[in-house]
């Protein structure tokens, strides 16, 4: 078990290094410079060049990557916080500590000051959506997989496929039209402050609904396929011919087997919900992680992009690890001996 965890951790480190380097390399080829974007279109080329120099943005790629990694690990102080640069970048935690994600050129704040609250906001959104997606998709999937091609299966399949194929922006606009414009019971934006007169929970309803509608059908389809496969297995026949009722067979024999394969798919939804909810966050002006990442990418705020990347990779590897543990719990055949 210890070896297993160690292997997983090593894998995570390797993935993080590879991903962060890739992001650095890709940013290199995106047009427009950070300095130009900071100073606006009317600054002279000299001003831009001067700022670029101060930001050390014209050093070779490897040098900058090395510097970023050094700052992150707390080996060297962040050179941008040096008062001599005149950038006025200040981190209350100091210039040199472990986990220093650097300074966000977009927000003019340390990345650590920005990113965690955004991640928290998204976690609330994702958590609520996930809590609804799991039971909904299991119920829909199991019921439609019970009898392939039956009336119930067809009905539920139509619902699942329709919902899944509506893009988030479309269902978002549709729901806003319904519940904000025609029947104004909910707010159309979710800035997560009560200045607009709407309570914070009421602001969460529509974004969560959009995510659930978009995602649960897909997971339900996965569970359905797995359930159909299980219902054809000889051990289900054994259970039926023991004299068990359909309900007893499903709960006692089919459910656990049918959840083994979709378990990974369910956990993958966590990754999607954390980093893939940009559209929903944009529609509802939700101050979330996805939107932060989008803004940072458009601006070329490398420090924020890198921090977001590392966090996403860590979440992905963790869910995968939880998935493996869950597999072992569900299926005794692959338990480590």
């Amino acid at each position: 078990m210890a070896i297993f965890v160690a292997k997983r951790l090593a894998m995570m480190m390797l993935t993080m290094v590879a991903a962060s380097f890739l992001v650095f390399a890709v940013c290199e080829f995106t047009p427009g410079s950070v300095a130009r974007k900071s100073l606006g279109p009317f600054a002279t080329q000299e001003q831009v060049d001067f700022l670029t120099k101060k930001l050390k943005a014209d050093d070779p790629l490897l040098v900058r990557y090395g510097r970023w990694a050094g700052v992150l690990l707390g080996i060297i102080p962040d050179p941008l916080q040096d008062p001599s640069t005149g950038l006025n970048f200040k981190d209350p935690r100091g210039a040199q500590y472990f986990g220093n994600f650097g300074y966000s050129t977009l927000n003019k704040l340390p990345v650590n000051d920005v990113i965690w609250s955004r991640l928290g906001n998204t976690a609330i959104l994702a958590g609520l959506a996930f809590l609804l997606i799991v039971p909904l998709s299991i119920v829909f999937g199991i019921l439609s997989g019970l009898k392939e091609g039956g009336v119930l299966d067809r009905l539920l399949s139509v619902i699942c496929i329709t919902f899944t194929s509506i893009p988030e922006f479309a269902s978002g606009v549709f729901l806003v039209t319904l519940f904000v414009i025609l029947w104004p019971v909910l707010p159309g934006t979710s800035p997560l402050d009560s200045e607009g007169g709407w309570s914070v929970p009421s602001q969460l309803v529509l974004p969560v609904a959009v995510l659930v509608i978009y995602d649960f059908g897909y997971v339900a389809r996965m569970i359905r396929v797995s359930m159909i496969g299980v219902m054809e297995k000889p051990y289900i026949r054994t259970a039926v011919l023991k004299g068990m009722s359909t309900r007893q067979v499903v709960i006692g024999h089919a459910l656990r087997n049918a959840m083994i394969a979709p378990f990974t798919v369910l956990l993958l939804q966590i990754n999607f919900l954390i980093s893939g909810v940009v559209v929903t966050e944009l529609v509802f002006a939700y101050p979330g992680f996805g939107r932060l990442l989008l803004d940072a990418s458009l601006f070329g705020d490398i420090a924020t992009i890198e921090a977001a990347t590392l966090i996403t990779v860590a979440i992905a590897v963790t869910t995968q690890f939880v998935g493996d543990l869950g597999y072992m719990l569900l299926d005794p055949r692959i338990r480590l001996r």
Partner: protein
Amino acid sequence: MTMVAETISTNGERASETPLLAVQDLRIEFRGKAETIVAVPKLSFEVKPGESFGLVGESGCGKSTTAMAIMGYLGATGVVAGGSIRFEGEELVNAPAHKLRAIRGRRIAMVYQDPMSALNPVKTIGAQLAEVPMLHLGASRVEALDRAAAMLKDVRLPDAGDMLKRYPHQLSGGQQQRVVIAMALLGRPSLLLLDEPTTGLDVTVESAVIDLIGELRRRYGTSLLFISHNLGLIAESCDRVGIMYSGELVEEAPTRELFGRPRHPYTQGLIDCIPDIGQGKHSRTLAAIPGHIPLPSERPRGCLFGPRCAGFRAGLCDRPGMSLEPVGERHVVRCVRWPELEVARRELPPLSGESAAPAAAITVSDITKFYHLGYQKTLKANEAVSFEAGKAEIVALVGESGCGKSTLARIVTGLDRATSGEIRMAGENIAAIEASARPKPLLQSIQMVFQNPDSTLNPSHSAGFSIRRSLKKFGIRKGKAAIDQRMRELLEMVRLSPDFAARRPSQLSGGQKQRIAIARAFASDPSLIVADEPVSALDVSVQAAVVTLLLDIQKTRHATMLFISHDLALVRHVADKVVVMYLGKVMEKGTVEEIFGGATHPYTEALISAIRSTKPEGAERKRVTLTGDTPSPVDVPRGCRFASRCHRKLGSICDREPPPIRRMSATHEIACHIPVEALETPRHQDEARDRS
């Protein structure tokens, strides 16, 4: 066995009693969107209380479908379109769901073909067993587990308490089947349906399971409906037998009567196509039944067996509406020509035999193959295996699953490398050269015929493709025309018409696929053929044809053959020499006469004894039943590998020291602690003498 005889006599008296199960004019259809398939057109039979009724037939004859119809479990498309199934006077056809639930598992229980898949992999044995008493007998969980533990003892599983906590994958195949049997018996059913209960199990395990079923049946007074394609098993476990062909019963009689005086040509054919353990290679050819079972949509008019029957008479046999005619006491047959055919019973010609040339074609010496599984864990697949095969000789490698026979085949063909030891072929040591490193002539000279023809032919290529590719790769023929010509010759050699070349594997039957596989193997003119269980996946009637064909080709081509099989009767029929393996080691080797002649290793004795014969008198012999399971090849016994299951174990010496090799003759060696003199008088010898 005397107990069985008793049951037969009591059944004679009970003949007037109401049957436990009465199937009358049963018609089963599978209704698809486009067409309706009639799996069973009209079937009637009865099972009396306390009786064991055998239903025999080849795959696709509808015997399993009938069992499922009795259980009311035909799936979404299957329907009972006519007739009735009465169980203890109650009608089961179209019975309401709650009534079926009360009968299933309680009054009729079932034992399935593949125990591994019949058990839920994620639930413990205890949980799965306890469900039955909790469901049907109103037992509490604790009570149910107690009953389950007691039943596990009844099916002779060791350490029942521990067994309840285990998962199915932690048990061996034989143990799993015992669990399934225990599960079936927990509801104290009056009828037990056994659907091929031992297919896929090793012979010695099969033997133990069949004995167990017989014993439990006597103890609980359960009636059996025994479904199998294995005539020997049926002959020994059943009081009465019905032979099924294409959804119809063609003959029904008490067991002794049926196997002693079979009346229907199909029954006769089935009996003729299984090799008999009592007879050796040169006694007779295996008589194959030509053709195959008609598809349900292509049933002929009149006698369904007509197109495959040698006694077919147009105008007589193709008239519709044939019925079962009585031919003796409780013996009925569906054949209009049975009185004439009985007289014209064909005598089977003996196989012309010639002794093999002595020059060694392949010499295997001290082959050892270890797989390292991790820290201090080694799987010993083969250890110091030595034997040799002369030119044009057939050497059979015999043993149960896990004995290392297939690993050895993989090493010979170069799919794997030996850890140490030598395999000399034409003076070269090929033991450590993998197929990818072997020169072309060497690859060409060793070819393999695999067990499962379904998975060895690429479904997206035509049958001719693989033969043509082999011809082209090895440069046997140059040019498209010459290759095509040769391919047609090869197809002719395996008795398939040339237009089979264009067919895809999905359009071929199992026997036809195996013929293509044989043609492909012989395409490169090999000097050595490795046949790994070449017929074990085929139906009995097809098996005989494929074996006969393989032997014919082998003889005309003078190819040496390593014939890997677990079927000793078949081995006796085909082989010149036999190598018996157990847990990676050679237990005994010798000529086929020596192995089956009398003085044998205790393991060989057990293997031979496990074979069930259809000869009624064969049932009287004393059987050697092995206890326990084969030990894991990772953790092999220190002394004799077979010691833990041996019925002639001498004492602690067997556990401590590896056995010496006893030389019985120049060609016969036995690895055993038992001295030569004692080996020469094994228990089954008297019986063997009786039969000869």
